[in-house]
């Protein structure tokens, strides 16, 4: 049971980004793909010192975890950027598969998690320490629950679209996002800043990119048939 859980976590941790980019194996319709980058000097990704929680500090003794509010990759790529269809989507069947959020090594995995309204969300504590999950929701109902060692997963769902910052009250550095979207056409950029929205019926769409610190940018795109269009977003970064 425990072993299987851990393997599952590992799987999600490694493959999470890939899963989110390609949700299904090339569905029919058009594709919008591209890359999110920045110009200017972004803030430093600072090492997080988890000395307060010896269990987690030991896990990251060799290589400290870095802050994730602005995560950059090679080629000025920006990671953890949400790209989604903000207008023009004709609607799709509600998502029913369970999304999983892990607390592992005193980090939220994934840092940015996308769900659709009422999609089941299971929250696991994989650490040998107690965690607390406090989504600072404004539109949805805010809650604040601890998950001690040995407690079962928390089953949650979000009812309305909202970008919800999530924090752990016990570990000040633990921050993540729950993004509740009505559309099923979305992607979260990986280390290379790339994204890919697939299976779009012909039509005119507004594509929006959202980064937690730099805000949003939008572009209108019209697609026909099964063409692939390329769109890119560039955020202006400041060091502080």
């Amino acid at each position, binding site marked *: 049971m425990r072993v299987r859980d851990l393997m599952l976590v590992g799987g999600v941790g490694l493959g999470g980004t890939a899963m989110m980019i390609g949700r299904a194996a090339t569905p029919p319709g058009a594709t919008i793909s591209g890359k999110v980058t920045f110009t200017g000097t972004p*803030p430093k990704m*600072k090492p*997080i*010192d*988890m*000395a*307060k*929680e010896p269990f987690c500090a030991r896990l990251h003794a060799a290589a400290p975890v870095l*802050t*994730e*509010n*602005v995560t950059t990759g090679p080629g000025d790529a920006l990671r953890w950027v949400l790209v989604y269809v903000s207008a023009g989507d004709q609607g799709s069947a509600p998502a029913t598969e369970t999304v999983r959020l892990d607390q592992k090594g005193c980090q939220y995995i994934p840092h940015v998690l996308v769900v659709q309204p009422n999609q089941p969300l299971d929250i696991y504590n994989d650490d040998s*320490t*107690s965690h*607390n999950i406090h989504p600072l929701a404004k539109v949805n109902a805010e809650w*604040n629950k*601890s998950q001690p060692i040995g407690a079962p997963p928390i089953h949650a769902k979000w009812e309305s679209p909202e970008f919800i*910052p999530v*924090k752990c*009250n*016990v*570990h*000040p*550095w633990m*921050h993540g996002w729950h993004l509740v979207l009505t559309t099923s056409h979305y992607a979260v950029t990986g280390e290379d800043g790339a994204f890919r929205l697939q299976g779009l019926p012909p039509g005119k769409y507004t594509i929006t990119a959202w980064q*937690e*610190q730099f805000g949003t940018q939008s572009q209108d795109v019209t697609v026909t048939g099964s063409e692939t269009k390329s769109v890119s977003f560039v955020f202006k970064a*400041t*060091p*502080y």
Partner: protein
Amino acid sequence: MGKLFAVVVTIITVVSTAIFIAHTWWLPPDISAHGHAIDRQLSETMISSGVLFVLSQLALALFAWRFGDREDGRRVKPFPGGATPMVVFAAVLVGAEILTLTLVGAKVWAGVFQTPPDPNSLQIDVQAEQFAFYFRYPGPDGRFGATHPELINEASENFFGLDPARDTSARDDIVVPTLTIPLNRPIALTLRAKDVNHAFYVPELRIQQDFVPGLTIPLHFTATQTGRYEIVCTQLCGLGHYNMRAYIEVLPQAQFDQWLKDKAAQQ
């Protein structure tokens, strides 16, 4: 029944006292310059109140043993001398003890909390928050940047609400979750709370002080032994109270200087 009571009270008294005397559970070794005075005060109180404790419990036990009703029509005996001599005796005895404890204790207390810090102290800014401590050193420029609560952003590790964009003195401030201090050098902390009440407690340092939101509270001490100790919060601050801790790392002066240099380079 009276004899049983006497035996039970005696056993309880003897066992309780023996554990105190044997120091089975006792204070951790003192690593502070001022702690020996507190320890002495504690020991003196322990001895004088221990004597009172044992005497009263044993008197209670003895009287319960001796003065049970044997239904023999014996007359009750009044307490020798009545209440007055005993009351006067007790008042004088306890009064003298109080007087001694107050005079000595007030001096100990004043030595810790009512003296100004040494002017050569190392200044460190401490912020307590739900549920962690963060420590700030002024950096190479020797100045602390101003704090702005509205700029506090834990996601980017800006725990103090510094404004490096506009405030250059804030750029080199060193912020760490472990209180690293040099050996035998007076340390002057300024305690500030970000959200609710907290407390700073290091048993080995024999020091404890609350953080109060809205107040800046000074606290100073000198550590006399190297090592790694725990700082814990003793003022109920919310759900993570039990897990609110930090470590204090006492280093020899040279190692401390090196540590500070390394940290400054990382900023």
